[in-house]
């Protein structure tokens, strides 16, 4: 049964004010188009969870969508701060909940597995544990030593961008996998955005490549270039220049609002956004092919 719909329908129907949402993807496959659509539809009081909030949450917070952020690394990777988020936290205008990367990912893993808690070994650094009451300890019954435990994280919605999916939602990813699978299984609703919608035969030619099965997927949207300025392995490059530019743009509130006016409110959808970026940017982000050597499953 096809679950195809437009991204604007998917956000309208499945992202509600007050939801805890997880836009998945570690550097790779960040669903910027979905973030922009959420801004355009003016969702409010969201709890935004991501290991790395990245520019997508900096922009959503700047647009007034969020009341709280859950994260493990609040930086512009390789560049510096996420200035909007940093200012909001320093000013006490935004709630936050903080983990280490493994803590954050472990919470998703517990959520995805239906476990009430998940253990990790101690790291000897205890200040975060003291600052965040979600961290607890449990005594290992075999050695009597303490381990750190964390509770599950179960987002209301996970938004997961993938290279290819079929119309039912079977989704395949290659390149950095991040926490895409865990976020999808942990969430109550799953929105898939895909660079390409392919036939079931393409997916079923390589079942080991499939990360998310159709029956946990709520809806599937065909959104080419969804991830810009992040990237999609094999489809287009990361726009490092824009990551550096955002550092300048976000030096002032005016800069940020002007950006949102022009690039979010000022376009109707991702297609228009991508065209607006222009030929030069398209050429800069183009990537030449490097195909995988196929494997043989055998016709049994």
């Amino acid at each position, binding site marked *: 049964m096809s679950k195809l719909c437009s991204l604007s329908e998917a956000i309208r129907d499945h992202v509600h004010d007050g939801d805890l949402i997880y836009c998945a993807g*570690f*550097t*790779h496959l960040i669903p910027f188009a979905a973030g922009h659509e959420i801004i355009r539809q003016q969702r409010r009081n969201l709890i935004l969870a991501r*290991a*790395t909030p990245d520019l997508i949450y900096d922009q959503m917070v700047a647009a007034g969508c969020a009341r709280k952020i859950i*994260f*493990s*690394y*609040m*930086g512009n*990777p*390789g*560049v510096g*701060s*996420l200035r909007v988020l*940093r200012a909001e*936290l*320093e000013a*006490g205008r935004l709630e936050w909940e*903080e*983990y*280490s*990367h*493994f*803590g954050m*990912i*472990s919470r*998703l*893993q517990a959520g995805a597995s239906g476990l009430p808690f998940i253990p*990790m*070994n*101690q*790291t*000897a*650094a*205890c*200040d*975060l544990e003291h*600052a965040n009451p979600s961290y607890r300890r449990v005594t290992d019954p075999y050695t009597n*030593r303490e381990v750190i435990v964390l509770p599950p994280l179960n987002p209301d919605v996970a938004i997961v961008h993938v290279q290819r999916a079929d119309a039912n939602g079977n989704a395949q990813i*290659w*390149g*950095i*996998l*991040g*926490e895409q*699978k*865990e976020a999808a299984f942990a969430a109550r609703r799953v929105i898939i955005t895909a660079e390409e919608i392919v036939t079931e035969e393409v997916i079923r030619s390589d079942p080991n490549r499939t990360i998310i099965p159709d029956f946990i997927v709520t809806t599937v949207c065909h959104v080419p270039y969804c991830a810009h300025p992040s*990237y999609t*392995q094999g489809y287009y*490059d*990361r726009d*490092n220049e824009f*990551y*550096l530019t955002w550092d300048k743009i976000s030096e002032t509130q005016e800069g940020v609002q002007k950006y949102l006016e022009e690039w979010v409110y000022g376009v109707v959808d991702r297609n228009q956004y991508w065209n607006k970026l222009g030929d030069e940017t398209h050429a800069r982000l183009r*990537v030449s092919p*490097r195909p995988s050597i196929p494997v043989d499953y055998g016709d049994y």
Partner: protein
Amino acid sequence: MEYTASELMTVNASRLLSNGETVLVGVGLPNLACNLAQRTHAPGLIMIYEAGVVGSRPSRLPLSIGDPTLVSGAALVCSMYDLFSLYLQRGNVDVGFLGGAQIDRYGNINATVIGEYHHPKTRLPGSGGSMEIAGWAKRFYVITPHQKRRFPEKVDFCTSAGFLNGGNQRAESGVIGKGPQAVVTDMGLLTPDQNGELILSALHPGITVEKVIANTGWQLKVSEHLTVTAPPSETELHILRELDPQKIYL
């Protein structure tokens, strides 16, 4: 040949890596240092990125640690949960590299906050994977410019554990990693003494002991075996500059 403070630190950091080791590569200068080592004395260095990439051979300098160039031609890609579980927590990572806004007397690192946690004066990015890297990599190194405000007696917030309050505290905590084995700055190298206290063990050419002490926030001890580092070679500088032609880090 002239060189910048960043180049000096990166070259010295790269020399701490051995061929065949597995290294968990952090963003920024560590990334440069590992890529430099792989292109010079450690061609068999196995670079691991917390994003879940193992055995990377990037053909260009990645700005972020999640760049597509890390993946194309890599040996293995796995989920982040697997990376932190099977590689880091399991003890399969030999070396970690960390930065940080503050490093204290006992090698503890703050990458989280200046001031009080719940009412931050300066909010920093936070741990990322550095809490686990500091705990579980068999050893780790820190790269940071040498400034008094970056080297306080005690960090405002311990994001990543060094030797805690010194003595046996770290060993007794049961973490598998041996902790920070060197801090590479633009003035020299600090290494831990038997008590886990960072002491000055090497100066870069032209730097005085007095200058280092003046730029350290505690009464810095000086090793009995103080050495002077070799300046960056032409080859090292040449490769390094090729890696970062836009001078984003250097």
